[in-house]
């Protein structure tokens, strides 16, 4: 009877993990993954890519699409430049955030606001591979033939109010981020896909300058 229950428990966990992300299964050895991942991200100094983003508003059956260009430089510089449907620029650089929306510019110190600090760190951690060390999240790692899926569940109360989880899909060939999925408690979600990636190409400092 007990063996049956234990077996049923294991079977439940196995099938639950399959059902969670169709086509993915929990990695057998997460520590081995973390070592390989750590090695790959340690050698990544910069990333440039195109990106496309789709926000799904579930209740409205609405999808909002946008696209642009993305730059990252270790350890704390990021530029996300939306081109379509309209220009919108965000630069993170050494704890400062610059946003330009058309003509309007806004400079924020991430240190001035706890939520900004956390979001700043999430964005950088997702890209530079440090998300597994972020204490604000609990992680699980899944895999399929070509990719890993890292599921991050927020632990901090203020982040839990905003997000259900953040998922990052990594290419198995180089451990670079292929996509980031942000899932809100409402059921809405935002998917960002990175294409035409260039790893470790030199990026001028001026790309990250905040006016």
């Amino acid at each position, binding site marked *: 009877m007990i063996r049956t229950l234990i077996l049923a428990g294991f079977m439940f966990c196995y099938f639950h993990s399959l059902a969670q992300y169709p086509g993915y299964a929990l990695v057998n050895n997460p520590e081995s993954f973390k070592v390989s991942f750590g090695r790959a991200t340690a050698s990544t100094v910069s990333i440039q890519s195109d990106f496309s983003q789709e926000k799904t508003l579930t209740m409205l059956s*609405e999808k*909002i699409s946008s696209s642009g260009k993305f730059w990252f430089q270790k350890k704390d510089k990021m530029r996300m430049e939306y081109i379509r449907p309209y220009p919108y620029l965000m630069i993170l650089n050494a704890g400062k955030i610059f946003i330009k929306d058309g003509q309007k510019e806004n400079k924020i110190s991430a240190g001035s606001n706890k*939520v900004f600090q956390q979001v700043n760190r999430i964005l950088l951690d997702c890209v530079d591979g440090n998300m597994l060390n972020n204490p604000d999240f609990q992680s699980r790692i899944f895999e399929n033939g070509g990719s890993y899926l890292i599921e991050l569940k927020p632990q901090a109360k203020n982040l839990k109010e905003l997000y259900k989880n953040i998922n990052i899909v990594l290419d198995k060939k180089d451990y670079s981020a292929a996509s980031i999925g942000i899932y809100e408690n*409402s059921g809405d979600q935002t998917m960002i896909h990175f294409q035409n990636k260039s790893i470790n190409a030199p990026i001028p400092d001026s790309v990250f300058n905040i006016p």
Partner: protein
Amino acid sequence: MQRIPTDPLCIRKFKPVFEHAVYKTSVDVVGKYLSGLLIIKRMPDSSSRIVFTNELGFTFFDFGFGADTGFHVYQIAPAMNKKAVIITLRKDFELIMFRNMDSVKQDALTDSGLVYYAFPQSKGVNYYITDPNCGRLVKMQRASDKKPVMEAFFIGNSAGESPDSISIQHLNFNFSIGLKKISAIATP
């Protein structure tokens, strides 16, 4: 202001119809700036949903307005989840959506060459202000019992469709919303 004998319901011809409109939106509030997309959509049950989400996909608020009456907060960012904020936004949207016009005390008054069509609310009055012949909607106004508190403007035809631009300016404190319609970016 002088009362004039005219039918306040003549302004109904200026009522916008928000079947499915997406606006690039900027909000200035007490020195802080938010931007993103504001979607107004009529649902199958004739209610309307208004969702404001930023460029990175973060939802500031998601409001529902019943077919004729009623209001529901589906979602709101914690920083905005304050009664005064919700009430202000609700009243602002109700004004530009031409809601709450069924009071028996509706009235028409003239001042400085303009006609003020007054629709009393539970608190204060909503005004729709036109030229003398009710031929052009000049502006909309929310007023307390004592003075105007907010003005709103449409740019582009509003009659039977969604205006190209909407401007909302609060008069008592630093709060303004600018909406500019963009098309063909959402794929249902």
